[in-house]
């Protein structure tokens, strides 16, 4: 199982890097549809979704090779948490141009700014854990 997810993490990162998703300038250009729109990153999501649409159809019917069953999200209803969470994430993503995966990959540059961003991101995740405990 560990070898499989290592391989997946490895290929995922090469994909993020080659596609340009790790480049915050490119991501902001992609989100700037009312300005000088850089549409190229639409091909990242497009390529990924088309590939998975076909692959997942097949994979979901088969038992996973290294697990007894699939472990898929069970929640199906669209609730307030989903919407507010997506809005907050979208604002943060738009401000800097880095989502979680590219944040981790960019740590390799050892730039101070990426450490500030990823440190804050981890703090945000930790704060959500506290918030989630408190409200229950």
């Amino acid at each position, binding site marked *: 199982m560990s070898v499989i997810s290592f391989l997946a993490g490895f290929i995922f990162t090469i994909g993020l890097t080659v596609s*340009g998703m790790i480049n915050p300038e490119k991501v902001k250009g992609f989100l700037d549809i009312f300005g000088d729109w850089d549409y190229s990153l639409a091909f990242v999501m497009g390529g990924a979704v088309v590939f998975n649409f076909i692959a997942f159809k097949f994979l979901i019917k088969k038992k996973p090779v290294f697990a007894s069953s699939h472990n898929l999200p069970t929640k199906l209803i669209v609730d307030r948490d989903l919407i507010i969470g*997506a809005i907050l994430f979208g604002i943060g*993503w*738009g401000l800097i141009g880095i989502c979680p995966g590219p944040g981790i990959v960019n740590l390799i540059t050892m730039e101070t700014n990426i450490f500030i961003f990823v440190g804050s991101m981890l703090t945000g995740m930790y704060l959500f854990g506290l918030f989630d405990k408190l409200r229950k």
Partner: protein
Amino acid sequence: MNGEILNPLFGGVLIAVASSIMLGGIGRIMGISGIVSGVLSIPKKDEFWRYSFFVGMLTAGYIMYNFSPQFFEYSLSADPFKLIVAGLLVGFGTRLGSGCTSGHGVCGLPRLARRSIIATITFMVAGIITVLLERLMS
């Protein structure tokens, strides 16, 4: 078609291949925000896959950075306050909304999961409005 489109397309397919390996191999959705926040907690035996995914990411990042540095030619220039606010929003928001670009976008859209379709549209629109407002105000 030129490199500007082929690289994103090729990269996108690689990202999809990785998520298909996760689904077909261990039956899980490749959601990075979930994996990263899982890495923060104390490791449990059945959660080691998160750590090895994370190590796989860092290993590939190291190799790409050293052998293909052209992909890293950009600067992340922003004042610390903005970086902190953005980081907090991304961290908190992805947990509250149960996912980010990878889990909801790359994995959820192809499954036609209603939650993921709504989430992806929402964070895309929020990102687009944020970039627009930032440009209008500067």
